[in-house]
């Protein structure tokens, strides 16, 4: 039973990070039907910015949690700026172009950002300080859950509640929902569609940056290439849950995390990826729009 719990919480931690990143994919897709393939790189940039901030803070003698919070805030601001700029220069000019063009542009931006960080920083793996303080839990609990996992879970949960409140309760949220339903109609009733789209990118990037900082301080290393795998996994989570659906992204992330964790635990980690992507194919065959996705009719 305790083994099951270990795998359950391991999968939950992993899955909540996937969900956090998947939200960025799903929100952008929900509004402009674009798969933002550069999203994983925003996550990676968030981690790098946090690394730099943490380095500077250490010089000035700050420590632990204060660095984590400060690095998190700066990473969020920086990554949001990247997300905003990305939309402005790579996607906005192509908004009326055929659907394939912004997709190619997204892949291009992904490769560009990877190489930019590679050249500006280094191809090596860099040590990331473990900013989440470690508490010694009691013996049986310590194997199942540690303080870093707890911090990740709580942060993700709080972030998701805030996001839900933003979308459901605020005026901005209402405008976002309106834009998602029908962009032209929203424009006609006075919603500044361009601003809403920019905002979506900013929010998605901020979430990715939070994910980046949490993961980097959890595993203790960063590298220019970490965004690729995280991006693929989060994209899979978004599709699994039903792309365009916020709760779908969260559900998809968790399912993916658990699938990986249980596959590695009960079968073999050799087949971790085989199992998760097999699951994706299976769900797409049974429910092409994803678990919580709505099968929308093609607009005419």
């Amino acid at each position, binding site marked *: 039973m305790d*083994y099951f719990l*270990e*795998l359950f919480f*391991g999968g939950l*931690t*992993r899955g909540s*990070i996937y969900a956090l990143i998947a939200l960025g994919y799903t929100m952008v897709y929900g509004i402009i039907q674009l798969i933002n393939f550069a999203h994983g790189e925003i996550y990676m940039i968030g981690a790098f910015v946090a690394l730099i901030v943490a380095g500077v803070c250490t010089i000035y003698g700050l420590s632990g949690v204060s660095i984590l919070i400060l690095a998190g805030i700066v990473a969020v601001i920086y990554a949001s700026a990247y997300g905003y700029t990305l939309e402005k220069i790579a996607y906005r000019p192509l908004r009326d172009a055929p659907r394939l063009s912004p997709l190619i542009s997204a892949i291009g931006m992904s490769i560009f950002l990877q190489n930019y960080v590679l050249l500006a920083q280094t191809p*090596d*793996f*860099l*040590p990331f300080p*473990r900013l989440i303080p*470690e508490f010694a839990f009691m013996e049986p609990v*310590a*194997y199942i859950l*540690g303080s*870093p996992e707890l911090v990740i879970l709580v942060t993700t949960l709080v972030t998701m509640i805030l996001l839900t409140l933003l979308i459901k309760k605020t005026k901005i949220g209402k405008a976002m929902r309106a834009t998602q339903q029908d962009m032209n109609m929203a424009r006609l009733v006075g919603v500044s569609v361009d601003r809403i789209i920019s905002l979506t990118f900013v929010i998605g990037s901020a979430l990715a940056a939070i994910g980046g900082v949490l*993961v980097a301080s*959890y*595993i*203790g*290393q960063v*590298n220019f*290439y*970490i965004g*690729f*795998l*995280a991006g693929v996994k989060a994209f899979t989570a978004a599709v699994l849950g039903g792309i365009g659906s916020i709760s779908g992204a969260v559900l998809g992330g968790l399912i993916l995390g658990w699938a*990986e*964790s249980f596959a*590695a*635990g009960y079968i*073999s*980690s*050799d087949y*971790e*990826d085989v199992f998760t992507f097999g699951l994706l194919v299976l769900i797409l065959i049974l429910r092409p729009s994803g678990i919580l996705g709505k099968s929308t009719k093609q607009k005419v």
Partner: protein
Amino acid sequence: MTVLLSTLALLLSMTATGFAADTIKLGVAGPHSGDLAPYGIPAMRAAQLVVKQVNANGGILGKQVELLIQDDQCKPEIATNTATKLVTDGANVVLGHICSGATKAALGIYKDAKIPVMSPSATNPPLTQSGDYPNFFRTIASDDMQAKMAVDFALNKLGVKKIAILHDKGDYGKGFAEFAKKFVEESGKAEIVLFEGITPGAMDYSSIIQKVRRNDAEALIFGGYHPEASKLVSQLARKRVKAAFISDDGVKDDSFLKVAGSAAEGAYMTGPRDLSKIPLNAEAVAQFKAEYGSEPGAFFQEGYAAALALLNAIQKAGSTDYDAVTNALRTQYVETPVGKIKFDAKGDAEGVGFSVYTVKNGKFVELQ
């Protein structure tokens, strides 16, 4: 005129054959041109330096040593021609070839001609282990030697009974892990409780770490590189798993120390032996620098060692007879830049190559 020429030719050939009987012929084969030349030229120069010194000291068995240098470009099809040429030229022993593929192609020819061959760089395990080439020796550790060393260390020094083996699914890491598995099974001293591949770049390895703990593994042998090893050791520490971490030279990198930090303490890994303490190594490098004015390059020390080992064996054997020379290689120790070596029954050098290191106070420390 014709008579004069033919007499001259006759005289020349007579002096040539007469001279040949008075030299020991050391063949040197390897890539001396083309893109792989940087791997072949240092060994060739090592042979030249050794021969120069030996000849200056009066040669071997009262004879001068003559070099027969042939370029094989690391290509198997050229290597067979090279080997045939060296055999017809009467090489007594051959230093080479450099690449494993070329070495393998040429070995059969030398075997039929009964010529001992010693490579400074061919690491492919079957070259010695298949037993097909009793004439083959090498002064470099083979790919599986690291795994052997890691397993011996775990079994004999740490005395563990339950071993978990992980790898990163790559050629290098998986190869290491599979050899480790084989050696543990052959020893019969320990049980393999887990053998699995992990996904490089994955966010966490907690599931696999739990498995290591649940199987009560006393040691974790990992084949792969330092980014994954850093993650593994940190998660081992976090989950308070006591298993000793043992890995390969892909992990013996300063990045591992930096990234894994305190979690790296007490980890073990194999790595190329520290040659700087061997006096003959410093001497050979100084000799090279004096002659060529630059750093020696890849496989220089191994090439130097091979030339010394071959000539020493002829000296000890008292002749260039195949059986006497190979016997001397297997029984007589020789001081070389890679250490004091002799060769085992299969042709691998004993006392060469790798050492086990551990991390102590943030530094790699060589264990004896």
